[in-house]
């Protein structure tokens, strides 16, 4: 990577994009989490894997929530 430059790696250019889930546990082309805030994240530097859990955002339907 070049120094001092941002590179977009993944995700939408739009705000509040819904998640594209695919099948659980299977890597599917185009899968991506929906837009969110205050998720928990972990990085596994050995395996170069990033993990993401929860947050306040939109699901696969672009929804909303049932309050």
């Amino acid at each position, binding site marked *: 990577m070049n120094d001092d430059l941002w590179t977009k790696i*993944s995700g939408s250019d739009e705000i509040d994009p819904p998640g594209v*889930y695919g099948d659980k546990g299977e890597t599917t082309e185009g899968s991506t989490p929906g837009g969110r805030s205050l998720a928990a994240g*972990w990085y*596994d*530097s050995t395996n170069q894997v990033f993990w993401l859990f*929860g947050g*306040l955002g939109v699901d696969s339907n672009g929804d909303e929530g*049932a*309050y």
Partner: protein
Amino acid sequence: MLTPMGTKVRIDWFDRSFETSNHLMRSMLGYLNDLWRYRVSDKSWTWMSGSNIVDQVGVYGEKGVADESNVPGSRQGAAGWFDSSTQELWLFGGHRYSGTAQYYNDMWVYQVNNATWTWMAGSNMVNHMGAYGEKGEASADYIPHSREGFAWYDSSTREVWLFGGAYDCT
């Protein structure tokens, strides 16, 4: 006469403002409990656990026992840390809104190697007051008050440090 009336006006205004902002927030967003993995090598996201629908309740199972059906409830602001030696993702607390503010003090571990969640400590009820004991004294019975916030993990000692956070007591 003036003081109570003034106070009432301010409360009414506050209530309306709060309700309006809450309504806006609630009409657009929900709380998630999905777990995703991003693999740098092939730039791929994989949905690993949880729901693709917002506002899910947790499935706790038995404390300390892994089960495929276990999963934390939807939330924001949970503290998380990763133990590379055991390949475990850890999660503590967080918050959601469902009619009222709900804060967690549950602690979970996700074992990467068998893709299961285990409820390890804390309460399966929201807004738990915690059990503090004596300062500086350790016990398996002690647990922090429910909150959302941040934690630090020292991998050399396998200790988690937690400070402060947020809890809405209104």
